[in-house]
C-alpha cells in the first residue's frame, strides 16, 4: 500500500528526498517517466540502493576502471566467475581478492550518486513511495548485494548544481545521438587531450560517453567546453547522412540511431528519400524499433501532407503492432486516404480498442465522425445509441429510433434490440405491440430461413462428401487397375503382352470412366495400340529381311561345306586322317542340312587302322585282303563296316567301324596271359613260397594263393584295414607277415597263423630274415632279432626311425635310418663300426652293403658308381641285381651297372628269364609284359591290361604277375 504519490512537476525530487530524509523513512520510492522507472531504497532516511534503467549506462565496471582500481584483464576474469556462479560483479572481484569491501563500497557510492544526479534532470514524471516494500530485500540477500548508506542531503546540493549545469549543456548538446567533429586546424588541447583525440569525426556523443572514463556529467561538460571554445562542432545533416549510410551494412543499429536523430531534428522537413533509407535500415531491427521508426515516419509524412505515403507506412505499422489505439487513431485521422472497406475495419478496431479502455465518450465522438460513411446503417445507429446510453447522452433515444427506422425487413433483430433499449430509456417511445409482433415474426422467419440454409448447407456438404468418397473409392480402384496394367506392360516386351496391357488400360477407362486414372488409362491404351501397330509393321519387314539373309547364309554355308569336304578329301589322300576328320567334324548339323542327300552319302569318312605289332593284314567283311596295317579305310557316315585284323603268331581281331569311330583305331593283337584270377582287393606286397603266393594289401588281410590252381586257399586278418600293407619276408618256404601295428605272424600256407615276437610299440617299418631267424625294425629305431620261435636274440637301437634293412654277407645286418645313417651290425647284434651317413636318399641295399641311391648312384664308402635312377625296387637274382628305370631297366653285375632301354619303362623290378639268364622279363608301365632278348629286342609280349606290382616265377615255369588292380595273371614262360 503506497502512502505518498504525485507528480514531479508539483513536488520536485529535491523536496521528496528532503522529506523522506527528515522523516527518517524506510521504504522504496519509485519514480516513473515515460517507460523509465527508477527505484530508490531508503533505510531510516538514508539511501542504500538505486535501481534504474540508466544503470545499464552507468556501470560499476566503468567506475572501477575509471578509478584505476582494476584492470581490463581482472575484470574479464571476474566476469567469467560471475557467469559461472551467478554472483554479482563486485562480489566476484572481492572473492578474487582484486578489491576489498571498502573499494567496492566507494565505487557503489559513486555509481549511486551518478544515478541520483541523473534523476535531478527529470522535470516531469510520477512518483510513489511504498513504506514497507524494500526492493527485493530477500533476493538481494541471496545475491549478496552490497548496500551502502548515502545521506540524501549531500546528494541534493550536487544534484541541483549538476541539474543547473545540465540545462546549459543541453542548450548546446541537444541530442546525444549526434556526431561531433573537431574543427579543422584546431590543435588538441593539453587538458582533456584523450577526449579530444577520441573524437574522430565519426563517433556520436553517446559513443564518446561510452568510451570516456569520466562520469557522464563530466564528459558532457568537457564536450560543452570544446563546443564553446570552437574546437568542436556538431556534424552537419549531410555529414550525418553520409555517416549513417556508411554504417548501414556493418552497424545497422547505430546507423538507425543516426537516422532517428536526423529525423528528430529535421522533423517535417525530412526528405522522402532519406525516410526510405531509414526505413530500409529499420527493417533489419526488431519489431519495436521498426514500429518506433514507422510511427515517426507516419507523423512526418502526415505533417508534410503526404497522406498516401503516411498510409503506406501506417499499414506496415498496423501489421507490426496491430490494435494499438494510438496507431488506429492516426489511421482514422488519415481515413480520407484509406480505401473505404479498410476504413470500416479500422473504425471497428478503434471502437473495440477504446471500449477495452472504457473510453465511451471518445467512441461516441468517433462514431459521430463516422456518420458520413455509416449513416445509412441501422447497426451504426444502434451502436451509437448504445454508447450514448452508456454516457447518458439524451440523444441516444434519437439514435435508437433512427436504428429502428432504418432496420429494414432483413434486420429485425437490430430493431428489436434498439426498441428494448429505447423502452428502458423511455417507455413512451416504445413500439406498438403489433409492430413488435411483426418484427418478431420477421425475425423468426429470418431465423427459419437461416436454419433452412444452415441445414441445406450441411446436407450439401454431406452429399459432396459422399460423392467425394465414391469418387475417391472409384479412383482408388481405378488406380489399382492402372498399376496392374502398368506392371503387365513393364513385365513384357512381346506384342501379345503389350496387347494384354493395352486391353487392361482400356478396362480402366471403361469400368471407372470419371476418374483421373481413366484418362491416364485411355492415354496409355492409345500409346500402346500405336506401339503395337508400329511393332507389327516392323516385324513384318524384319521377317522378309531375315528370309533374305537366311537364303544368303544357306548359300554361303553350302559353299563352305563343299569346300571343307574337298579339303578333307585332299588331306586324306595325303595320309592326314586326323586333319581330314577334323575338317569333317567341323561340318555341323546346319551344314549337312544344306547339302543334298546324294552329296551327304558321297562323303567318305577316313579311319586309320593301326595294330600292335604292325604289318597285320586287314580283311573286309567278305574276307578279302584290303591292305596291311597301318592303313586308311573310307567309311560312309551312317553305315557300319566289319574288318578282320590278323597276323601270324598273334590273335585275330574283328573290328566294327563307322563314321563315328575315332580317326585312328589301334588294335592290339598281343596275346593275353594264360589265366587270370581277380583278388578281392588290390595287392601291395607279394612273395612266393613254394607253390604258394602270399599277398598283402591295405585291407589288413594276407592271402595265400595256390599258384597251380590259381585260387585263394587262405585269408588271414593280420593288420588293420586302411593301414599300410603288411611287410612280407620269405625264408625257406616260410613267410613272415609284419603288419604296420600289432604282432608279426608266420604265415603257414596250409595252416593257420603263428604270432611271432613282441607287439609293436611303434609302427613296424622294416623286416628281413637272417640265417637264424627274423629281424624286425620300427619307427622308434628299435631293431629286434627273433629266433624261429619268436624269442628275442638281441636288440639294437638306432637314434632315428629305421627305414631299410638288409642281411649282410657276413651273417650280420645293414640298417639304414631316416637320418641316412647306415649301421652295420654283426651276427651278435653289435655294431661293427661307426655308422656311415649316406650321401642321398636310399632305394635299396645290396647284399655287399652297397646302397642304391634314389639318383642311381651305387654307393659305398669305398666306391661310387653312377647309374640310372631307379623307379622300382631291386631284385637280386644270382650274381645280378635288376631294377626298373623310367627309360627301361638296369642290371648291376659287380661294379658294372648297365642300362637297357625300353620306351615302356618298368612298373616293377624286372625278372631274369629262365635258361641262360640273358633274357629279361620287364613289365612295362603300359600294362604289357615283354620278354627282351640279349639284344634288348622284344621277343614276346603278353597283354596284362594294368601295371604290374610284382613278378614271380613258379616252379612250374610260369611267370606269376600281380597287378595293381588286384588281378593275378599266369603267363607261360616258354611258349608252346
Amino acid at each position, binding site marked *: 500500500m503506497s502512502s505518498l504519490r504525485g507528480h514531479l512537476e508539483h513536488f520536485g525530487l529535491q523536496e521528496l528526498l528532503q522529506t523522506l530524509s527528515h522523516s527518517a523513512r524506510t521504504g522504496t520510492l519509485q519514480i516513473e517517466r515515460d517507460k523509465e522507472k527508477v527505484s530508490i531504497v531508503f533505510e531510516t532516511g538514508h539511501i542504500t540502493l538505486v535501481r534504474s534503467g540508466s544503470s545499464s549506462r552507468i556501470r560499476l565496471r566503468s567506475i572501477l576502471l575509471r578509478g584505476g582500481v582494476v584492470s581490463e584483464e581482472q575484470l574479464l576474469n571476474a566476469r567469467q566467475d560471475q557467469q559461472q556462479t551467478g554472483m554479482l560483479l563486485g562480489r566476484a572481484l572481492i572473492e578474487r581478492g582484486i578489491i576489498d569491501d571498502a573499494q567496492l563500497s566507494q565505487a557503489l557510492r559513486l555509481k549511486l550518486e551518478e544515478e541520483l544526479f541523473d534523476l535531478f534532470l527529470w522535470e516531469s514524471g510520477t512518483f510513489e513511495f511504498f513504506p514497507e516494500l524494500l526492493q527485493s530485500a530477500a533476493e538481494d540477500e541471496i545475491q549478496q548485494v552490497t548496500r551502502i548508506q548515502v545521506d540524501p542531503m549531500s546528494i541534493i546540493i550536487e544534484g541541483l548544481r549538476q541539474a543547473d549545469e545540465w540545462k546549459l549543456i543541453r542548450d548546446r548538446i541537444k541530442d546525444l545521438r549526434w556526431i561531433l567533429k573537431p574543427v579543422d586546424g584546431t590543435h588538441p588541447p593539453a587538458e582533456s587531450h584523450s577526449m579530444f583525440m577520441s573524437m574522430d569525426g565519426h563517433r556520436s556523443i553517446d559513443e564518446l560517453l561510452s568510451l570516456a572514463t569520466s562520469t557522464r556529467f563530466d564528459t558532457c561538460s568537457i564536450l560543452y567546453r570544446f563546443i564553446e571554445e570552437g574546437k568542436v562542432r556538431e556534424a552537419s545533416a549531410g555529414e550525418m547522412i553520409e555517416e549513417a549510410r556508411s554504417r548501414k551494412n556493418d552497424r545497422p543499429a547505430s546507423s538507425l540511431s543516426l537516422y532517428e536523430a536526423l529525423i528528430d531534428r529535421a522533423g517535417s522537413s525530412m526528405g522522402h528519400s532519406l525516410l526510405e533509407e531509414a526505413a530500409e535500415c529499420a527493417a533489419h531491427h526488431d519489431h519495436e524499433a521498426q514500429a518506433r521508426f514507422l510511427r515517426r515516419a507516419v507523423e512526418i509524412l502526415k505533417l508534410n501532407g503526404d497522406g498516401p505515403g503516411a498510409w503506406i507506412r501506417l499499414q506496415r505499422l498496423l501489421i507490426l503492432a496491430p490494435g494499438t489505439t494510438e496507431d488506429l487513431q492516426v489511421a482514422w485521422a488519415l481515413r480520407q486516404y484509406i480505401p473505404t472497406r479498410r476504413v470500416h475495419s479500422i473504425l471497428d478496431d478503434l471502437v473495440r480498442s477504446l471500449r477495452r479502455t472504457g473510453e465511451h465518450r471518445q467512441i461516441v465522438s468517433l462514431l459521430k465522425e463516422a456518420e458520413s460513411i455509416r449513416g445509412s446503417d441501422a447497426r451504426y445507429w444502434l451502436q451509437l445509441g448504445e454508447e450514448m446510453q452508456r454516457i447518458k447522452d439524451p440523444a441516444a433515444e434519437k439514435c435508437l429510433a433512427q436504428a429502428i427506422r432504418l432496420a429494414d425487413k432483413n434486420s429485425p433483430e437490430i430493431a428489436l434490440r434498439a426498441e428494448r433499449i429505447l423502452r428502458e430509456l423511455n417507455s413512451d417511445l416504445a413500439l406498438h405491440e403489433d409492430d413488435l409482433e411483426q418484427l418478431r415474426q420477421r425475425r423468426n422467419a429470418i431465423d427459419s430461413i437461416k436454419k433452412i440454409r444452415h441445414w441445406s448447407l450441411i446436407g450439401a456438404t454431406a452429399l459432396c462428401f459422399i460423392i467425394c468418397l465414391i469418387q475417391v473409392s472409384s479412383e482408388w480402384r481405378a488406380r489399382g487397375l492402372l498399376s496392374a496394367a502398368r506392371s503387365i506392360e513393364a513385365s513384357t516386351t512381346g506384342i501379345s503382352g503389350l496387347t494384354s496391357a493395352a486391353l487392361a488400360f482400356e478396362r480402366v477407362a471403361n469400368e471407372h470412366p470419371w476418374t483421373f486414372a481413366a484418362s491416364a488409362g485411355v492415354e496409355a491404351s492409345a500409346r500402346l495400340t500405336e506401339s503395337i501397330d508400329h511393332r507389327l509393321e516392323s516385324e513384318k519387314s524384319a521377317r522378309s529381311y531375315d528370309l533374305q539373309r537366311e537364303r544368303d547364309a544357306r548359300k554361303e554355308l553350302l559353299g563352305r561345306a563343299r569346300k571343307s569336304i574337298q579339303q578333307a578329301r585332299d588331306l586324306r589322300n595325303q595320309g592326314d586322317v586326323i586333319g581330314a576328320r577334323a575338317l569333317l567334324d567341323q561340318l555341323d548339323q546346319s551344314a549337312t542340312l544344306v547339302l543334298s542327300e546324294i552329296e551327304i552319302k558321297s562323303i567318305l569318312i577316313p579311319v586309320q587302322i593301326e595294330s600292335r605289332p604292325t604289318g597285320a593284314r586287314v580283311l573286309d567283311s567278305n574276307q578279302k585282303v584290303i591292305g596291311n596295317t597301318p592303313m586308311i579305310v573310307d567309311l560312309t557316315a551312317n553305315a557300319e563296316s566289319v574288318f578282320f585284323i590278323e597276323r601270324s603268331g598273334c590273335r585275330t581281331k574283328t573290328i566294327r567301324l563307322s563314321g563315328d569311330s575315332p580317326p585312328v583305331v589301334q588294335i592290339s593283337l598281343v596275346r593275353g596271359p594264360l589265366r587270370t584270377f581277380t583278388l578281392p582287393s588290390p595287392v601291395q606286397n607279394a612273395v612266393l613260397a613254394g607253390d604258394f603266393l602270399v599277398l598283402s594289401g*591295405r585291407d589288413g588281410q594276407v592271402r595265400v594263393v595256390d599258384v597251380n590252381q590259381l585260387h585263394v586257399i587262405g585269408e588271414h586278418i593280420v593288420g*588293420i*584295414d*586302411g*593301414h*599300410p600293407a603288411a611287410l612280407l619276408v620269405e625264408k625257406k618256404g616260410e613267410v613272415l607277415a609284419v603288419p*604296420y*601295428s600289432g604282432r608279426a605272424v608266420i604265415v603257414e600256407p596250409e595252416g593257420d597263423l603263428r604270432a611271432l615276437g613282441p607287439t609293436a*610299440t*611303434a*609302427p613296424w617299418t622294416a623286416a628281413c630274415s637272417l640265417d637264424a631267424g627274423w629281424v624286425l625294425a620300427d*619307427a*622308434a*629305431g628299435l631293431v629286434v632279432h627273433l629266433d624261429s620261435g619268436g624269442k628275442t636274440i638281441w636288440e639294437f637301437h638306432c*637314434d*632315428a*626311425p629305421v627305414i631299410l634293412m638288409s642281411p649282410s654277407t657276413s651273417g650280420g645286418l645293414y640298417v639304414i*635310418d*631316416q*637320418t*641316412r645313417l647306415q649301421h652295420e651290425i654283426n651276427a651278435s647284434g653289435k655294431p661293427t663300426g661307426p655308422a656311415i*651317413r649316406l*650321401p*642321398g*636318399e636310399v632305394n635299396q641295399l645290396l647284399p655287399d652293403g652297397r646302397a642304391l641311391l634314389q639318383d642311381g648312384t651305387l654307393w659305398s664308402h669305398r666306391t661310387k658308381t653312377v647309374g640310372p635312377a631307379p623307379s622300382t625296387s631291386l631284385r637280386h637274382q644270382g650274381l645280378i641285381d635288376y631294377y626298373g628305370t623310367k627309360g627301361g631297366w638296369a642290371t648291376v653285375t659287380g661294379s658294372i651297372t648297365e642300362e637297357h632301354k625300353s620306351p615302356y619303362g618298368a612298373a616293377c623290378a624286372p625278372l631274369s628269364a629262365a635258361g641262360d639268364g640273358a633274357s629279361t622279363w620287364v613289365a612295362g608301365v603300359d600294362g604289357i609284359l615283354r620278354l627282351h632278348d640279349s639284344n634288348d629286342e622284344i621277343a614276346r609280349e603278353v597283354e596284362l591290361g594294368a601295371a604290374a606290382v610284382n613278378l614271380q616265377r613258379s616252379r612250374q615255369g610260369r611267370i606269376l604277375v600281380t597287378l595293381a588292380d588286384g588281378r593275378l595273371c599266369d603267363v607261360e614262360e616258354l611258349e608252346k
Partner: protein
Amino acid sequence: MISTALLTISILATCCGSDLITADELALTDGSLAHLQGRVGDRIGNTIHLDGWSALVKVAPLVKIPRRGRKDRPMLLDLWLVKNDQGWSIIQAVPVGSWEQSLAHHRSRLTDGDLDQRTSILRFLLREAPDSTRQKLWVELESPDTDVRAWIHLGGQFLSGEPILGQTIERLGLQSLAIEQQLFLVEGLWLSKSDYFQRQNLVEVNGKVTDSRRDLLARSSSMKLDKILTSSRTNSVSKVIRSGSTRKSVLAIHGNPGEVTWVQLEDHLVEEWTYHDQVVRLIDGRVFEIDSIE
C-alpha cells in the same frame, strides 16, 4: 646414474682393455667388461635377449635400448656389458654406424685368435649380414685361414637350400665334408639338419630322432585321453565323418588314407590318418577328432 655408468666404462676400459668383439664371442670372454656388437631381441622386464648369446642379459637402470619399427629387424648395436654375480648387464647401447665398417673390422680379426673365436666371428658375420649380401659374403669368407669344417657348417646353417651352397660344395669337391657336417643332399640341394628334419617330418627329442607327427599325436592325445575316449564313444551313423565314426565308415567315405601313423597310450591305440585335405584321428578304431588341412 648415466654418468656413473660412463665413468665405470672408462675406468674398466682403461684397466682391462676393451677390444670390440662380437656377441657370439661373449662366451669366450674372461674379463668382466665386454665391448661388443650384436642385435637384441624383445625385452622382458629388465632382461633382453642378445643374438649369439644363449642366456638373457640384464639392462642396467636408465639405459635406453634404441628402438626399432614393429616390422623392422632390430638394429645392430654397439654394446658395453659388465659382468657381475648375476651375469652380464648392458650398461650402454648405441646403434652401429654402418654394417660395412663392422664387417671390415671383424673380418680383419679372422686371422687372429683360436678356432672357437674365428668360428664365432664367422657365425656372427653370416647371421648379421644383410640377406642380399650373405651368399656372396659366405663365398668370400673361404680362405686358407678359414676352418673349412666350420665354414661349411655355417654355410649349411645360413644358406640351407640355396643353390650357391650346392654349387660351391660341388666346385670345391667338399661333399664328404658336407655330409660329415650333417648337411643333407636332397634333389640337388644341400639342406641343413633342421631343414632336412622338417622336410622328413622328423623331430629330435632327448637326443633321439622320431617322427614329428607321432610325437605330436602322442603328446596331444595323452593330455586329453579321457576327453577323446568320451568323444570317440559317441554313437554316430552318418554319411559324414564325425566323432564316434568307425574305421570302416572313414574308409567307405574317404578311402585309404595317404599316410598313417599311430601311438600306443596306455592300452589304447591312437591313430592319425592323413588325407589330402584333412586329418582324421581315431582311438581304438573310432574317430575322436577331424582337422582340415589349410
